[in-house]
């Protein structure tokens, strides 16, 4: 974490949240 700029950290978290949302929606809502 100590090497990670705040902006990149925010981008990674938002990106991961978006990926999780899409993956779980695809996994569960398409059943």
């Amino acid at each position, binding site marked *: *974490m*100590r*090497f*990670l700029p*705040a902006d*990149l*950290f*925010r981008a*990674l*978290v*938002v*990106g*991961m*949240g*978006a*990926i*999780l*949302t*899409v*993956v*779980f*929606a695809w*996994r*569960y*809502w398409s*059943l």
Partner: protein
Amino acid sequence: MFLVATGFLGGIITAVVGGSSIICFPAMLAVGLPPIVASASNTAAVVPASLIAAYSDTGRAPIWNTEVLGLALVGFVGSALGAMLLVALPSAVFVTVVPILIAVATLLFAFGERLKTSGWRIGTDRARSMTKPLLFAPVAIYGGYFGAGMGVMTLAILGLSGPGDHRTTNALKNLLNVLANVVGYRKLHRSRHRRLAGNHGHDGGCADRRICRRTFNALPAR
């Protein structure tokens, strides 16, 4: 071997941003586990990785003051409640709400700064100490209920209610996720899943301190 490799990568992702379930959960489903068992196994697996990550960033590690103790207590009780809900609610509810909760948390994190500047800021230190645990309660319940994406949710709440920089916030997030996930560990029944858990913490969490930069480069491609 497949689960061990997945645990290693998941540990790194857990320590940095959270969301290791993106690879661990499908991996466990791929080897034939039902969703709820995979969820419980993933919950147990992230405990050691998050604990090491919380204290590896020296100088930003969580200090056990009143605020952190309040958050920890809420996390413990909320997770226990969430674990009971997981058992009590039908599976249709279980699978339907997860993407919605993660999407809301992501939006909250993305736009949290704007919300704070447009009136959501909680002014005094004392007000923050009292409000943060209340805001964290639903996240803790979710942590015991499912757990996937809890890191994003915790960061969203801490970002809204706290003035801390991203390293302090992430360290506190990791500690709170440990406490919440310890409750979820009770859901783990099958011993073979502990291979994933062991590797997750001992390899992934420790490696985070040394190879953060490589992880950041690798994440978008995954």
